[in-house]
């Protein structure tokens, strides 16, 4: 299932139109089926806003987004989302959280339970199925969130800085787990991140956003062989070149956005 964005913009207006903020400006992007695309850029550049529009949670002010050739008008089960804040239902146990999407699909409790358990095993959480989210660490919560989204089998994965709240070690482990799952299922992934290193390690292509209003500055293909390993990357000249090229482009935009903020006194 491919994604196609045509001239997508988002304009936020306060009541009475006294203040207008152009968050996203004229995004054209095509993502092939099974492709892994990372979006990077300074904070507040509109990359998450763009992701939410693909999800159908907010609608573009102009332009349109096609998923599998059909225009996006609302959220749908063909697109699963994972948030940085996990967004687990705190009143449901781990198992019930993972079963939620399956039951919404109309599966009977027994079947839903069996499928949910499979995904909990895959993410090494089978021992915690009866536990409420409050008792889990950040990394475990994020694994539940990923299991919950994978379990009902959406063809497109939208990931909104999913590892942003994790510590460095957990983050590395989760990245490799995600790659393993993706290679097994060949889902289309749109992955928003702050981290250039994370983007290069995971993605087929890296899309660099400008400072607000978010436009596409550059799209960099990552032609590193898969499966990728950190040990190899450490000594790979191509990897080093890519990193410094993307990092320089992002840094330029981060500086612009800091200057903008200093001039207007508005916090991100």
């Amino acid at each position, binding site marked *: 299932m491919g994604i196609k964005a045509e001239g997508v913009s988002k304009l936020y207006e306060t009541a009475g139109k006294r203040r207008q903020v152009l968050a996203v400006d004229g995004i054209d992007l095509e993502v092939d089926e099974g492709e892994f695309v990372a979006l990077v850029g300074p904070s507040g550049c509109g990359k998450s806003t763009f992701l939410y529009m693909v*999800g159908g949670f907010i609608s573009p002010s102009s332009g349109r987004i096609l998923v599998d050739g059909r225009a996006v008008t609302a959220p749908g*089960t063909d697109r699963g989302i994972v948030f940085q804040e996990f967004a687990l239902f705190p*009143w449901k146990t781990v198992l019930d959280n993972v079963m939620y*999407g399956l039951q919404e699909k109309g599966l009977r409790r027994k079947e839903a339970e069996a499928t949910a358990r499979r995904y909990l095993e895959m993410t090494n959480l089978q021992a915690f199925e009866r536990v409420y989210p409050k*008792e889990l660490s950040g990394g475990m919560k994020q694994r539940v969130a990923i299991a919950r989204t994978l379990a009902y089998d*959406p063809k497109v994965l939208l990931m909104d800085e999913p590892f942003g709240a994790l510590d460095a070690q957990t983050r590395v482990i989760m990245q490799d787990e995600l790659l393993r799952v993706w290679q097994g299922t060949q889902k289309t992934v749109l992955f928003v991140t702050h981290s250039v290193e994370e983007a290069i390690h995971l993605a087929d292509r890296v899309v660099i956003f400008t400072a607000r209003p978010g436009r596409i500055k550059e799209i960099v293909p990552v032609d590193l062989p898969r499966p990728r390993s950190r040990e190899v990357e450490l000594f790979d000249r191509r990897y080093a070149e890519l990193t410094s090229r993307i990092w320089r482009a992002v840094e330029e935009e981060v500086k612009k956005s800091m200057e903008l903020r200093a001039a207007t006194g508005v916090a991100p």
Partner: protein
Amino acid sequence: MPRFLSIALVFALWEALPRAGILPAETFPPFSTVVATTSQLFLTGEMWPHLFSSMYRWAVAFVISLAFGIPAGIAMARLSAVRNFLDPILTATYPVPKAALIPIIMLWLGAGDLSKILVIILGTSIPLVISAFHGAQGVEKKLVWSALAMGTDRRLALFKVILPAALPDILSGVRMALSVSLIALLGSEMIARQSGLGYLLFSSLDVKAYDLSYATMLVIAIMGFAFDWGFVALMGRSLVWMEREEGSDG
């Protein structure tokens, strides 16, 4: 220090001071005397009708307040037209003592059960509306989005996501409403005196039947205490999933 030392001390003083003659026993009877009078009132059956008529008014009013207050608060959070209409009215009437309305409502509806129930509803529904409003408004947007992405119908998300997510706030509003409802109940009964605990409390005071006053006070105190404890137990059970403030998981 033993955990309930202070409570033991209070009861000991209540017993000892009148017995020792430091406080006059006829206007301040010792604890054991009050307990004896109270159980006597229950045994002779004198207390029951008052307890029942109070509980009847309270229960009818409380159920109606729950049925109106919580949906109204959630509607305020989800629909801006409802919010723009109700919010200023709530802000303006929040500090108004609802119990002060008792005489006016009796002027309109007479001194019967109807006015008493209405007064209780007025007092009780406001904390419910406010807490349901804050609870539903504070629901993390991404929680709703997650449910929508997993195929939940937009309208059903109200019951599947917003209501459970707002539950902690709603329940703390219910606790406040419980205490307000008792004040309104007793206040209305002591102003329109026909029956009920509020009536008993002040009609006995008027005829200087102090032992009856103290017995009623004890019944009211136990009632308030039982309500709160029952509620806390219920809340603990339905909110096992809630993160406590002291919680440290990250």
